[in-house]
């Protein structure tokens, strides 16, 4: 995937995140879910830690050095990670762009 240079809107980031989630957990599961910016990774999307690793990899591959996603995650404690939702990631990416 190419490293992007233009800024994405929050809706574009949301759609991109949805695409990554679909790639990680599979279309058949995503179809049953209503993914919104409020969706939490662990509770709503039921992603486990190795799936979040895959998801982080996709963000890294897409945005390159623009975004230190793993560094951002590593600053969170367990409770923050559990409550992490899509909206928080979208805001973080928007800030970094």
């Amino acid at each position: 995937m190419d490293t992007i240079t233009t800024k994405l809107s929050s809706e574009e980031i949301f759609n991109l995140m949805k695409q990554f989630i679909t790639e990680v957990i599979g279309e058949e599961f995503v179809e049953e879910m209503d993914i919104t910016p409020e969706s939490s990774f662990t509770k709503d999307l039921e992603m486990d830690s190795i799936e979040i690793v895959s998801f982080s990899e996709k963000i890294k591959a897409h945005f390159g050095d623009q975004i230190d996603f793993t560094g951002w995650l590593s600053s969170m404690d367990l409770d923050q990670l559990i409550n992490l939702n899509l909206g928080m990631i979208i805001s973080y990416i928007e800030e970094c762009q």
Partner: protein
Amino acid sequence: MPVVTVNGRSVHIQELNKEAAETIVLVHGMFSNLSVYYFNIAPLLATKYHVVLYDLKSHGMSEKALTGYDLTSMTNDLLALLEALNLQQIHLGGYSFGGLIALKMAIRFPERISKLAVIEAPDPNDDKTRGIIDEYSREFLEHYVENFTDTTKVKMGKRQMERNHRMYEYLFYQTSIKTDMEFEKNFFGSPAIETIKQPALLLYGTDSNCLNAGKHLEGLIENASLSAVPGDHNIPIQQPLVIAEALLNFFQEK
């Protein structure tokens, strides 16, 4: 996803801070994967070191394998990984079953290992931990359903249940993991353990049923020091920063 081919199978790896002069390789435990280190422990170590994480065979996102779960095979895999990454000498850390792999590595390839960190490695012959696999086979799923997944503290949903169940079924009923572990029963009793000369840090939980294994190892390994931190067998998940700082201090000591 970064993948290297090791002994004919694809292995999922993650590397942080590749530019650093010295390398730390971390090995996860059974039923787990490299994510046990990825979020907190590895990033802190990567402030000073090149950190390499990898998924053991049939774990995480590495390729499955029906055989080769004994410590000799597991260390053959690790050696091949070091070759593939062109790493001559490393610091090595391992958690639980990964701790046993780290110990075996220090025995077999001492010239490759500078310092050794062992977190919660069980004594394969200890009454309480010998049946760690049987215990898992009885309680693994129940525990996971009733309690939490390893790092997320959240009840598993249907999809996660099925995923974990599939891994468990595969490892226990299709691979040689049970017999391979049985074969390692006398690992702590073998004279080879006492040949380990590297500085070794043994990190155990104060409430862990493996703590005695740590004490045992401290007596067997000349340059080992045991450090007990609050928690049980799951200390890397319960206390990631405490573990990360203990590892960083240990690897940095001159």
